[in-house]
């Protein structure tokens, strides 16, 4: 599946939906969106990854970048991670830095 990324912002929250494979080729697009999301200084960043099928090292790097870019005060939620994506988040320890949830109730 081709990579797709979409951003939706409200005053408090930036929501990013990721689909497909987040690898070295697609990571720069994700990074651009993160930078765009950071402009509004949201209190919360919510990443919807239900349809993300693969997370490569390059994708993980951007997630870590997001954590650092947003600052320690911003809570990051990763929603709907499953399969290998979930495994990668756990094996790399990134799940300690964010809130992993199955769903997001707004």
């Amino acid at each position, binding site marked *: 599946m081709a990579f797709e990324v979409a951003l939706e912002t409200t005053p408090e929250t930036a929501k990013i939906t990721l689909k497909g494979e987040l690898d*070295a080729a697609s*990571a720069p697009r994700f990074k651009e969106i993160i930078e765009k999301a950071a402009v509004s200084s949201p209190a919360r960043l919510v990443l919807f990854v239900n349809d993300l099928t693969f997370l*490569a*090292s*390059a994708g*993980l*790097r951007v997630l*870590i*970048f997001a*954590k*650092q870019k947003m600052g320690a005060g911003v809570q990051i939620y990763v929603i709907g991670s499953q399969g290998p994506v979930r*495994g*990668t988040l*756990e*094996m*790399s*320890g*990134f799940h*300690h*830095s964010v809130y992993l949830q199955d769903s997001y109730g707004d």
Partner: protein
Amino acid sequence: MPDTSSRIDYYPTHEYQGFHLRPGHPYPFGATILSGGVNFSVFSSHATSCTLVLFDKGEPLPRVEIPFPDSFRIGNVWCMVVFDLDCESVEYGYRMDGPFEPAEGHRFDPTKILLDPYAKTVSGREIWGQDPDWQQPFPHRGRLVFEDFDWEDDRPLERPMEELVIYEMHVRSFTRHPSALVKHPGTFAGLLEKIPYLKELGINCIEMMPVYEFDEFENSRKSPTTGETLYNYWGYSTVGFFSPKAGYAATGRWGMQVDELKNVVKEIHKAGIEVILDVVFNHTAEGNEHGPTISFRGLDNKTYYMLTPEGYYFNFSGCGNTLNCNHPIVRSIVLDCLRYWAAEFHIDGFRFDLAAILGRDPWGAPLPNPPLLESLAFDPVLAKCKLIAEAWDAGGLYQVGTFPAYGRWAEWNGKYRDDVRRFVKGDPGLAGALATRLQGSPDLYGWNGRGPTASINFLTCHDGFTLLDLFSYNEKHNEKNGEENRDGANDNHSWNCGREGATEDPPVQALRRQMIKTALSILLTSRGVPMLWMGDEMGRTQEGNNNAYCLDDPTNWLDWNLTEQNRDLLRFVQLLLRHRKAHPLLRSKKHPCFHRGGFEEYPEISFHGQAPWQPDWSEESRRLACLWSGRDRQDAPAFLYFAVNAHWEGAWFALPRIPRCWHVAINTGMPAPEDIFAPGEEVLLSDQSGVFLSPRSAMFIIGK
């Protein structure tokens, strides 16, 4: 053109085939990600030219080969910044030109592409055991690493040395067996799932056998007896000193082995457990003149290896070559490497394989004041790291007790292992030796003020029999290794308890179980730093193989079913570790005193025989008791009496009088659960005047 808007002082000055370049920084060596580019820096004192070879990930042919302009060389260092590289997908190596004059020590070969010795990850062996492309001329390629791991507030634990209980383990073996029931068997991620087990066991430090990138296919072959593939399984042959073994990471295929290992260290630290790495700086995977050219041989053979006057490789390691550790350049790379692991991976300490080699000069002679060992001991970054030497080498240098320590180095105490093994199996003439081993080996470490923490006490380790096999085999059985049983040590000081190998004979089984418990009781009540070998706490066997370095099979894999089958043994070890923790007297960093130091008029330690205060030091003595006296953590009087009867006949031991009542904590002559009582639940001794020790048993009795 690259974006230089954010750093006006950082811009390309040169161009080569569309790649933008500028002169690089000599330090740090290796490939370093900078703003907009990557700094490549490599050293060679004898090369005449150097070329950077860049690949796209996995591609067989290079994307570009960029010769370092002569103006980019500072001294003997070639350094260059290359702009606009995709750090995720680039792979790199070097070509070095120079003389090929083996008699002079030079083996330059510009047809070879060489791995950067400072590479932070190495590709080519991402999935354990997957057949490599044997035609690939450059199989081990350097890759770049981002230092962006979120450590939160973690840092090395800095536990006092005297508090440590080390558990030596092999990452793959620990969870590869199907019975481990982990999601990713045989990996760092698998180890993560077993942290609760380690915590419950009661150890507080794991020592990982080599996790630096190595090639499991080095010298791989088919076993002539079983037909299975024999590997470089243990990994004592380094390819990349700065890179974690990709094949040990479930995420290695995606290049995330650094993240995965760092996460394991962080999580193990959260459980209060330290991580020591077994590091192999005595030789490399390049072997002798017939071995492959991977890195050092082609970069600067004469600098990195100890060479004979004819230009052949000295073989003090027994593995074909010997790293020239006391050459200043090699010293630097060892220091840089360990600092990197301590700083970036939060590693708590290092165990140096065949460390006596590190004290030899470039011609092999032992140095009285080896610069490398001194540098490591006084290095500011490594200041709180444990430094542990395997204080011997394959060239005959044996330095247990005399390893140059600088107040820092501890040693694997091979004499402890041998003396305790021999005493327990009933050899004569060892009562005196046992007495010194219980005290933390003052004969070895007292004369120069090193104390018991210099002594890593162990009965078993990866080299040699498992503890169950120690009492199940008189002879090694290494046929599976494919060397006609010639490999492995012959001086095992083992005893098979009457039958060679596995048996259904209940008395033999019971005796073996008892011997294990007796030996472990000595280990865990001795001063010094105890070390357990993976699986001994659950009765693991290697079926008599005492050198299973090449077997990727259940010989090495830890069978977790044993936790159920040998539940009583596991319980015994767990409680034994709790007893050690409960009694600071056993863990002092000082050797005990014979004249004072105990409660009131009692000495800190006294020795006893069957009659109190009368130890039998004679040649035929196989019985010894000691009384520890002092104060416990609550400052209350403490009396700990430990007796061993290694004789084949039982014996009455009259107990010394103390101003407290004797309670039995351990009696290895009793079947479970009466073999051990938890701290605080010790059983009042009905006859306070003495105890009967069964044949080949030990008792630990405390006064309260």
